């Protein structure tokens, strides 16, 4: 019985590099599933953290750093969407408001 498994394992090992190669060649979008739906009606901590791409428990410095980065990328003066910029600001304000004791 063990003999069969050894054969299977060997077969897999020989196929593995080819498998890895194919997986790498797939476009990333084939596997990353985008979040569904629009923005929440009311901002939540979960959403604010997701908008900024940070942990809900991130500290002030982190919040500020990522906010600046995301804002630069999405700046309306550089062809960004004013609505998205407003959401990004709203997310930052929310996270900072949450942190206040």
């Amino acid at each position, binding site marked *: 019985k063990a003999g069969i498994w050894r054969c299977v394992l060997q077969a897999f090992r020989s196929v593995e590099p080819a498998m890895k190669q194919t997986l790498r060649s797939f476009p990333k979008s084939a596997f990353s599933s*985008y*979040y569904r739906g*629009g*923005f929440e009606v009311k901002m939540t901590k979960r959403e604010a953290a997701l908008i900024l791409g940070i942990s809900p428990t991130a500290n002030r410095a982190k919040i500020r750093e990522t906010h600046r*980065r*995301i804002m630069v*990328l999405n700046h309306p003066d550089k062809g*960004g969407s004013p609505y998205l910029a407003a959401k990004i600001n709203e997310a930052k304000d929310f996270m900072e408001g949450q942190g206040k004791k």
Partner: protein
Amino acid sequence: MAKYLVQVIVLGAQVVTRAFTRAVRQEFAASQAAAQARGTGRAAQESAAASSLAGMSLQEAKQILNVTSMDPVDIHKNYEHLFKVNDKSVGGSFYLQSKIVRAKERLDEEVRIDEAEKSSKDVN
């Protein structure tokens, strides 16, 4: 004694019935007005269905991609830019990128509905 009781009951019933019919009439008028404003055609229904399926209203989709018209060229141009700047590889937010993708999908669907309606009108 009983006569007065009956009178009170009858009066009460009249008041209730009058209020009820008034409410029903108001509700009907309101729904007619709303339907007229939005349009009750098949396209309007399909659009409402698309919004609820996507979990995103047409208005929000337009706001996200910053388009005012339904021009496919505008939509595509804004989508390409926003998708690119919010890519994870350049430090963008995947969540924001997702919303951009969903907005594009919603708008594409709306364009499809509009075209279908236009072509059905041409046939007629």
